[in-house]
């Protein structure tokens, strides 16, 4: 049933793209308006039927906007910086400096690819230790030059490979968490797609944490969880239900600050609207965070995670 929904959305998205390619004119705008009505109608019919697994599908949608799309749309004067100064540059994590509304900031994010070639180049957004070490380098650069840090989270997880283990995947993640914990600059985190386990958390220890409406954040992928606990990946939908990995779940658990709403159908349908919303949330957060004394900020950053208590005593 939901497959039908996604197929219909794909067709509408194709229509939108074709109209947009024609350039703006009153005729085209009118047609686009018509398509939008169709999208809204379709979305309203299905929105309450979206299961947690459907959110997983949306979070991984192939034409969903990725970190560099956000960077291009929201920031200016972007300079990408490469390399961990030890071993290599990891294309699965991008990092750099840019301007956000007349304020210079540092940006770090996972990067997936938008076509097969780029996906392979970006290792499907699965970082190796070099990626986290590059991230730490940019975090410390941000601290030194008084740049607020913004991170974009979208990874299936840190890469499980021989080289990654040899070069200390676990140590790289652990170090990143430790550095973020006391970093003397404001940190805003936006989970845009897949918040895949430790590989996502490694860049997510921030002062403000937002999730796009259809993003997910989980300790393990539903497939991985199903394979371990049910001994078959076929139970991934049930695993997704149990894992409580949607933005709504995380808001309810008090782990994230807010959900950034997506346009009807999802972020990939109208990316420019998502860019605008994300920009607003970042703007509001930076205004608030930059007002605080740095000691207060770091204290509150620790307190926010300290207050996650789900036990009895």
């Amino acid at each position, binding site marked *: 049933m939901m497959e039908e929904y996604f197929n219909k959305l794909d067709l509408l998205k194709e229509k939108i793209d074709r109209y947009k390619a024609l350039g703006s004119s009153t005729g085209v705008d009118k047609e686009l308006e018509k398509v939008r009505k169709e999208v809204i109608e379709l979305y309203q019919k299905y929105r309450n039927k979206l299961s947690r697994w459907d959110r997983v599908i949306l979070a991984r949608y192939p034409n969903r906007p990725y970190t560099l799309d956000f960077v291009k749309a929201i920031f200016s004067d972007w300079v990408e910086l490469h390399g961990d100064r030890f071993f290599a540059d990891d294309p699965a994590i991008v990092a750099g400096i840019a301007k956000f509304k007349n304020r210079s900031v540092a940006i770090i994010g996972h990067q997936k690819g938008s076509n097969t070639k780029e996906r392979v180049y970006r290792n499907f957004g699965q970082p190796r230790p070099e990626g986290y070490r590059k991230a730490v380098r940019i975090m410390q650069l941000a601290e030194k030059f008084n740049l607020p840090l913004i991170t974009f989270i979208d990874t299936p997880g840190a890469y499980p490979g021989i080289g*990654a283990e040899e070069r200390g995947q676990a140590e790289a993640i652990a170090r990143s*968490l430790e550095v973020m914990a006391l970093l003397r600059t404001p940190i805003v985190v936006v989970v845009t797609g897949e918040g895949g386990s430790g590989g996502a958390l490694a860049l997510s220890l921030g002062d403000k944490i937002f999730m796009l409406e259809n993003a997910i954040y989980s*300790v393990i992928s539903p497939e991985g969880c199903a394979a371990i606990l049910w001994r078959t990946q076929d139970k991934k939908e049930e695993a997704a239900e149990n894992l409580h990995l949607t933005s709504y779940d995380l808001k309810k658990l008090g782990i994230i600050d807010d959900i950034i709403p997506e346009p009807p159908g999802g972020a990939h349908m109208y990316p420019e609207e998502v860019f605008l919303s994300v920009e607003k949330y970042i703007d509001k957060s930076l205004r608030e965070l930059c007002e605080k004394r740095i000691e207060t900020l770091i204290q509150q950053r620790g307190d926010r995670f300290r207050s996650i208590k789900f036990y009895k005593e």
Partner: protein
Amino acid sequence: MSWFERFRKQRKPTKKEGSLTIPEGLWKKCPECRETFYRKELEENLYVCLSCNYHFPINVETRLSYLLDNYKELSAGIYPIDPLRFKDTKSYKERLREYQRKTGKPDAAVLVHGQMFDIEVICIILDYSFMGGSMGAVVGEKVTRGAEISLAMRVPFIAVSASGGARMQEGVISLMQMAKISCAIAKLKKAALPYISILTHPTTGGVTASFAMQGDILIAEPGALIGFAGPRVIQQTIKQELPEGFQKSEFLLEHGFLDIVVERSKLKDTIYTILTHLFKQDPPKC
């Protein structure tokens, strides 16, 4: 119940006349070299195989007796809950009850305040026999408190890990423990109180990717499996055989991710010596 299961249940093992009834646990077989030993013999050798040096996993009390001269448990009354009402083939609640019955413990970590010779320490020990030492809210809270108490009392912190990683049944709450612990450990380290992390067989996943790798000094027991991803996951991903000794302590030492690999019999002395070097040193006057 299918017929063969019924059949299996009814079948009782037949006992040959004249055979001895061996009390359970009198012998122990080494999973590495398959040699069998008297339990007593093994115990005297600190549960280290006499022929191949395999370090058997040991329970928390045994571990504590090897490391500390005396101790008092802290925060013993923290119990897990089931915040997500997680249910796979069994419910999480049921699993918890089972492990609590089996181990007699509320969860997979024990936090103590104790004495190592003349140095007071705070020590957290993970219990692999409780759900694979997995880290949920209770383990996360105890490690965090451990770091906080060390800081407040200004004494060194020692963590002994043995864990499969974050506990899936507590979902993203388990994941957040890594962030919570990292904040506490970062503060502890900034205050220049020694934090020594001991990695034992096996330590993987979110535990390795947080406090187990955040120690000022990283020590492992010989032959311990230590990594981020488990070997099975890696094998499935890359579809290749893994190299000999991959992810073992000696492999990590060779690649620069451990300070020392130390035999169980020398662990306490080694930690103590390191603490005497690091703890309460006056700044050099030069």
